[in-house]
């Protein structure tokens, strides 16, 4: 087997807001073509970590490498170049509510490609089909269910075939059936598109289903980082307590 390279590397990342220290020396590697889940409780800094990776926040200190390039010192224009490697699925989908589904999904193509209208239409239909949506192109986000909005969010995130897809709490607030559907959607995106995925979650069941690696964030640090099966054997008290809520105490 060939050695995989790290698509994302985080080194000694520190971030505080006022007196509140959120990240306290995070170290993380996400290998190319894999799905890594950052697992942790509410308020543990998962979203803050993700926002550093895509350059929405600047750390107090530390480095974030994307394909070997440190994104921390980059300015607005350089960050735009790096962000084109990413697609991001937001917790609330963050669809533009003044646009239809078609306009939402085609938005990145219109901004960053010179495709013809027919090519854009075909690409949008393909991506909507991957996430299992049909006949919704002319609907507005307000007319869709929560699960459908998440799927439109994923279609928009992958429409430009990015190298990396970030998922912010993709299953939060969804019913079990829709949660299962979103999990399948993440697995399908990985299989069909070969993307590197970083998932922020506190959903243990979903994490164990979609992850190649799980990194557990607690007190601003990654306290455990392993494949799902190995993580179950972790002796770290917070990890044990967290996993016991799903797997039981034994």
């Amino acid at each position, binding site marked *: 087997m060939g050695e995989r390279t790290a698509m994302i590397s985080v080194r000694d990342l520190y971030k505080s807001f006022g007196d509140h220290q959120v990240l306290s020396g995070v170290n993380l590697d996400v290998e190319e073509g894999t799905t890594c889940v950052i697992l942790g409780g509410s308020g543990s800094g998962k979203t803050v970590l993700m926002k550093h990776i895509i350059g*929405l926040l600047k750390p107090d200190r530390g480095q974030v490498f994307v394909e070997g390039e440190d994104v921390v010192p980059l300015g*607005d224009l350089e960050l*735009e170049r790096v962000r084109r490697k*990413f697609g*991001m699925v937001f917790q609330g989908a*963050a*669809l533009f*509510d003044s646009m239809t589904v078609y306009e939402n999904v085609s938005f990145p193509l219109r901004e960053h490609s010179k495709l013809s209208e027919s090519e854009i239409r075909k690409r949008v239909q393909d991506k909507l089909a991957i996430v299992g949506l049909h006949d919704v192109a002319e609907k507005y986000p307000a007319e869709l269910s929560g699960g459908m909005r998440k799927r439109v969010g994923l279609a928009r995130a992958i429409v430009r075939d990015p190298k990396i897809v*970030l998922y912010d709490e993709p299953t939060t607030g969804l019913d079990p059936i829709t949660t299962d559907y979103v999990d399948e959607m993440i697995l399908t995106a990985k299989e069909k598109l070969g993307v590197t995925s970083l998932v922020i979650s506190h959903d243990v069941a979903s994490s164990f289903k979609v992850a190649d690696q799980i990194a557990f964030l607690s007190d601003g640090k990654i306290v455990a980082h392993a494949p799902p099966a190995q993580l179950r054997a972790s002796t770290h008290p917070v990890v044990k307590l967290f996993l016991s809520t799903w797997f039981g105490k034994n």
Partner: protein
Amino acid sequence: MTDEVERPPGRAAALTAAVAWVGERVIAGVEAFVGVLSLGASVARWMLRPPFRLENLFAQFDFVGVGSVLIVALTGLFTGMVFATQSWSAFERFGAESLVGPTVAITITRELAPVLSALMITMRAGSATCTELGTMRVTEQVDALETMAVSPVQYLLVPRVLAGLLMGPLLAMLFDTAGIFGGFAVAVLIKGLSVGTFLLRTQDIVGPDDVTEGLVKSAVFGLVVMLIACYRGYYASGGAKGVGQATTSAMVTSAVSVFVLDYLLGLLFH
């Protein structure tokens, strides 16, 4: 035992609280002023960079400009009528009714058109802009734009601020026209002043400088009120309540800024 002099309880605390209250507001005001200037500089920088999204720009021209035509025309018409009615009752005591036309025209072109049309832009377009941007911020739509490598400043703010800058003078011109017509309607059609007197006296006294002053002011006001609305909306936080507070703050700050700037620009012109 010590003979300590006792201070009235609560007096020092009340004084401290008052000083803290004033201090907090001064600091917040300075922060907002610097924030608006900084955002303005950012808007100016992104304005010059491609891509130039003309579709977004014309949509904002339509919203800020065309959408305000009726309200500005009505405000102008009735302002001119009210002003002419009040002027007439004052001037007729001295037999100087012929001055009603130029008085209305000068006041409207120099002062009332830029100030009142800016307040109309603030109430109609500024409030909607602040609420829309604030909602986009708290529902992560602004973050979504950034993650898609699209500058929110360039995509969202540049067209809105430019619309304020360019539509402000056009709406002020409309206000001028409607206001002077309102004055004409009262002086000529209702009070019976001759058309020739109204027009000739107005022509004699009102010059291009008066109109220019009003248009320059309205461009500055349009720019400032839209910039304030964008600033408050763009940095809104705290869900629906936060968006509501941001909009209230934007309205109050914009209205006060218009009056302060009107005085300062008046000093420059005179």
